């Protein structure tokens, strides 16, 4: 049964996702960060679909479970495209866009193949299991890509404040979710007490951080290079 906190996280993340898109339109950077806007818009639509599904079939119905995880798989693919968009932005001066897009397509195909190989013996409900396995795997690929992007931002001494904050927020989101998995496996009893709130918090964090970045950080803002980063070179 859903409690008031579940609804609060849900409605809160929906509103923040809508505000991100509205704010991008208002700032006239909608097309500059198109993958981010597509992701946020689709996420808001998925939230509406989830609400309709729960209302029609109930929270414990298999219809809702299928809707939830199928759309989650699609959202992970969109999130993957958002990460690739940030890669293109960071490496924009190197003119390696075609290589980045090629690597992204290879990664997507390899992850799908790997997921299919893992579950190839499970002929029953193959599609459902494939979606679940693929979502997990593409999530961890995204996590590694985000960490590598963090490294690239530091190494290349990226100074565009807006871009850096977008990437940092994404890294915290992925790290928080991966940490939740790890804690869930180490301490299963903590899941019901505290851990089941964390995905909701992370769902709020990402649109909130991106909204703050768009609303408060001017596009021309530049970061002063950290002395530690300079010293490490």
């Amino acid at each position, binding site marked *: 049964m859903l409690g008031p906190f579940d609804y609060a996280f849900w409605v809160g993340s929906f509103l923040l996702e809508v505000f991100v898109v509205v704010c991008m339109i208002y700032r006239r950077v909608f097309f500059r960060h198109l993958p981010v806007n597509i992701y946020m818009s689709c996420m808001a639509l998925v939230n509406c679909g*989830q609400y309709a599904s729960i209302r029609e079939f109930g929270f414990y119905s298999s219809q809702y479970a299928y809707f939830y995880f199928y759309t989650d798989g699609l959202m*992970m693919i969109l*999130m993957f495209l958002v990460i690739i968009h940030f890669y293109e932005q960071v490496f924009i001066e190197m003119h390696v866009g075609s290589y980045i897009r090629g690597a992204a397509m*290879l990664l997507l195909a390899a992850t799908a193949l790997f997921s299919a190989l893992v*579950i190839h013996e499970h002929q029953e409900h193959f599609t459902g*299991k494939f979606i679940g396995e693929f979502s997990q795997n593409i999530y961890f690929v995204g*996590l590694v890509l985000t960490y590598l992007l963090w490294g690239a931002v530091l190494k290349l001494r990226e100074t565009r404040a807006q871009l850096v904050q977008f990437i940092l927020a994404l890294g915290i989101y992925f790290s928080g979710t991966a940490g939740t998995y790890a804690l869930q496996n180490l301490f299963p009893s903590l899941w019901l007490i505290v851990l089941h709130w964390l995905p909701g918090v992370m769902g709020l964090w990402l649109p909130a951080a991106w909204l703050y970045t768009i609303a408060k950080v001017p596009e021309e803002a530049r970061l002063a290079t950290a002395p530690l980063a300079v010293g490490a070179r």
Partner: protein
Amino acid sequence: MNKWLIVAVFVLLVLTSAMGLKSLTTHSTVANGTTAAPVLAGSGPAPWHFPPAQ
């Protein structure tokens, strides 16, 4: 050609790192069906198990 070789090595590196990270943080795959599927990109309330019991 050399650049595409680097791309291929990068892809392999990311894939193997991702699977290593996955094995560290989740001790099972969805395929064995013993644990709830994780909540990934979704922000709505997550069902407990996937695929749902038939």
